[in-house]
């Protein structure tokens, strides 16, 4: 449990990460963890589905549960005085879900429709395909699974998964807001003290996908997604990576936005982001451009990636640093974003980075560090996924445009 007192707020936010994410799904049952989260709040402890939902609502709790790559995340925000009753409901959901078999068909139906809905959103779809090609299985898989694997899941699968993976060992609880530490500790001990530990499974890593993929789609725009490897959170070059992403895509004068959109009008949306989980990290980029202009867009993007460490100005470095510092402080106005950072820090680093340390790391970003990062970790090999009417020529990735 990691907690931070924010006495100036009325609310408390909690984020519980349980080591039961999609990577633990047996391959023929992909989507099991995700389906699990849909089933877990359909009744728990002494309450049926509707009673449980009513109880959360009566406490004015903003509550959600969902499965990611590694973890199932339970998040909730409530008023400080409701800490205990809200946590009691969450403990029921985690430890004593009813997993009612009468609801399984409906939940499968919901998830299937959700998978189909995703295909209508090319911007999200292209990024999911990028993860699938870039990261080795099972890390790149979409936790939702496929229509086929979801439909094969049984109540028995869910019960076994709950017993094996929804366990306290490896679970991280981040709490932020108007709390007293002692009270939080006592409450959690009382509510979660009897939660039974399980095994800590190891994950077998599979192969990565193809470097270039085109997905045929009758769309106005060609959606372009790129990824290349980066360093993990906490690595000595980590802030070099963040600095480089900031140069490319931080604020309004990031180089990608400036060159692709502002100077050439090639797209509406264009960005780069750093993404990481324990085993892998990458920098991912996206742009969407109408079919005839997509190849040029790819070339301009690639050109910027290939020369990102060149001609770094003091002004650019300053912009990146002040942007990062501002978002650090804005966290202080929201218990939910602080609980998010606390739990993520523990997940990635097994420790909490105090604000002062983060400020110092941001202050340490410099042109030299970004150049050094680029030298050690150039944007290669690149994974390219395009989605639209015409495939792109991957030779464009070598562009110096």
């Amino acid at each position, binding site marked *: 449990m990691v907690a931070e007192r924010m006495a100036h707020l009325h609310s408390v936010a909690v984020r519980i990460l349980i080591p039961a994410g999609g990577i633990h799904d047996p391959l023929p049952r992909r989507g099991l963890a995700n389906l699990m989260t849909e089933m877990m709040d359909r009744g728990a402890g002494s309450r049926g589905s509707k009673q449980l939902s009513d109880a959360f609502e009566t406490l004015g709790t903003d509550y959600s549960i969902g499965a990611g790559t590694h973890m199932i995340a339970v998040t909730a925000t409530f008023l400080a005085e409701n800490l205990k009753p809200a946590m009691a409901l969450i403990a029921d959901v985690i430890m004593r879900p009813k997993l009612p078999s009468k609801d399984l068909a409906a939940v499968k139906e919901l998830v299937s*429709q959700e998978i189909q809905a995703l295909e209508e959103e090319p911007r999200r779809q292209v990024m999911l395909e990028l993860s699938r090609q870039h990261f080795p299985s099972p890390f790149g898989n979409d936790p939702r699974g496929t229509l086929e694997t979801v439909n094969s899941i049984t109540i028995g699968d869910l019960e076994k998964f709950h017993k094996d993976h929804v366990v306290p060992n490896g679970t991280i609880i981040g709490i932020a807001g108007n709390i007293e530490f002692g009270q939080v500790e006592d409450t959690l001990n009382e509510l979660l003290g009897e939660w039974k530990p399980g095994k800590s499974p190891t994950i077998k890593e599979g192969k990565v996908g193809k470097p270039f993929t085109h997905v045929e789609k009758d769309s106005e*725009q060609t959606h372009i997604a790129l990824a290349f490897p980066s360093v993990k959170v906490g690595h000595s070059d980590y802030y070099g990576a963040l600095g480089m992403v900031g140069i490319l895509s931080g604020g309004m*004068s990031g180089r990608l936005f400036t060159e692709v959109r502002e100077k050439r*009008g090639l797209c509406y949306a264009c960005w780069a982001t750093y993404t990481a989980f324990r085993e892998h990290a990458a920098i991912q980029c996206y742009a969407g451009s109408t079919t005839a202009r997509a190849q040029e867009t790819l070339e301009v993007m690639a050109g910027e990636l290939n020369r990102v460490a060149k001609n770094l100005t003091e002004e650019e470095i300053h912009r990146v640093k002040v942007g990062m510092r501002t978002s650090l402080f804005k966290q202080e106005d929201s218990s939910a974003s602080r609980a998010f950072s606390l739990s993520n820090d523990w997940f990635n680093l097994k420790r909490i980075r105090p604000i002062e340390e983060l400020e110092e790391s941001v202050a340490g970003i410099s042109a030299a560090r970004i150049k050094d990062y680029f030298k050690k970790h150039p944007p290669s090999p690149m994974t390219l996924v395009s989605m639209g009417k015409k495939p792109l020529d991957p030779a464009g990735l070598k562009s110096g445009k």
Partner: protein
Amino acid sequence: MFHHTELDNGLTIIGEENPKAHSVAMAFFVKTGSRDETADESGVSHFLEHMVFKGSKKRDALAVNRDLDKIGSSPNAFTSEELTVFYASCLPEFRAECLSILSDILRPALRSEDFDMEKKVILEEIGMYEDQPSDMIHDYSRKLYFGDHPLGNSVLGSVQSITDLSRSQMIKYFHRRYVSGNIVLAVAGNFDFEKLAHEAEKLCSRWPAGSSPRSEIRQTAGTEGFEVRHDTRTNLEHVVITTQGPPASSPLRFAADLIAMVVGDSSGSRIYWDMVDPGHAESAGLYFREYEGTGVYSATYSCSPGKAQKNLSRVMAILTDIQKDGPTAAELEKARTKMLSRMVRSSEKPMSRMLSIGTQWTYLNKTLSVAEEMDKYRKVNDHQIRQVLDRYPLRQVSVEALGPLKTLKQS
């Protein structure tokens, strides 16, 4: 602590100080949007919103981006049917600079080379939305419901209207709509109002005075219609059912909000339990949207095409039930608790407070504090619920469907 002042030219400045906050959020609310456009200007409000970031006489586009980035502000803007809002948030130490930049760009140079370049970006944005047909259905259903009422106008415009739009049309529109009496500066978070108002006076007092009230704000009960758009690019059928609700100025809007929450909130509502929980629809809800002069409720759902017909009957049965008997006491109480706790949670963030007071002021020329607004929801009683249901019955005026289905029958 809430403050309000007005400059000689008519620009309104409002602010809510919160010394405990770690940041400050601010915005210029311009009371203009697609409903204020003539047919040959379609899309100009949103295009102009983009052009504002292309710079003033003092700054070119790259300088705007560079200067806003220097202070770590996260600037953005949005355009709706009746508002164009330019906002940013930053650390308190950069507040003065942030205001100075925002007020500078609100007098854009509208250079012709920028106009031509940004036109391409807008056309890309239209392309992007067209690739997600489920985003487009809201435009289609608004047009169907509002008919020739200007609230039916598209915010983005069409490829044709944007291609045809000239720079001189945009300049004319700008002079017509961006006058001081039509603009509200709203600020919330950690700042000193006196100081801010003084700075704003220096920066904005030369803006042209005058007001630009809307010509057409008639209340409308909508146009009956039933439209099924066959679109093979989607897997799911998307449906929007629209009916009249109270306008933004109505004291009944609080009751309307609670009804929408009982009937169609994303969790725990009647629509949730009857449609989403059993897996009949991937998502479904009822939303209340208030405008100047009128309002709408929209019931929406997305589902496998085979379930669309039956779901239409389900939605109509829920609306008919509520219309007849209203929500139960327990449902109303639960909705109230949800509403109040959402308000408390979001009130901790300067950005959401700023957007809330700014929006209220543009509609009502007054602002409720969080406590006052909560009180309004606490006081909603059965009588008001009945009143709002009688005056604005929950029924089907127009139905817009988009997806694989070729036909759908009236329920």
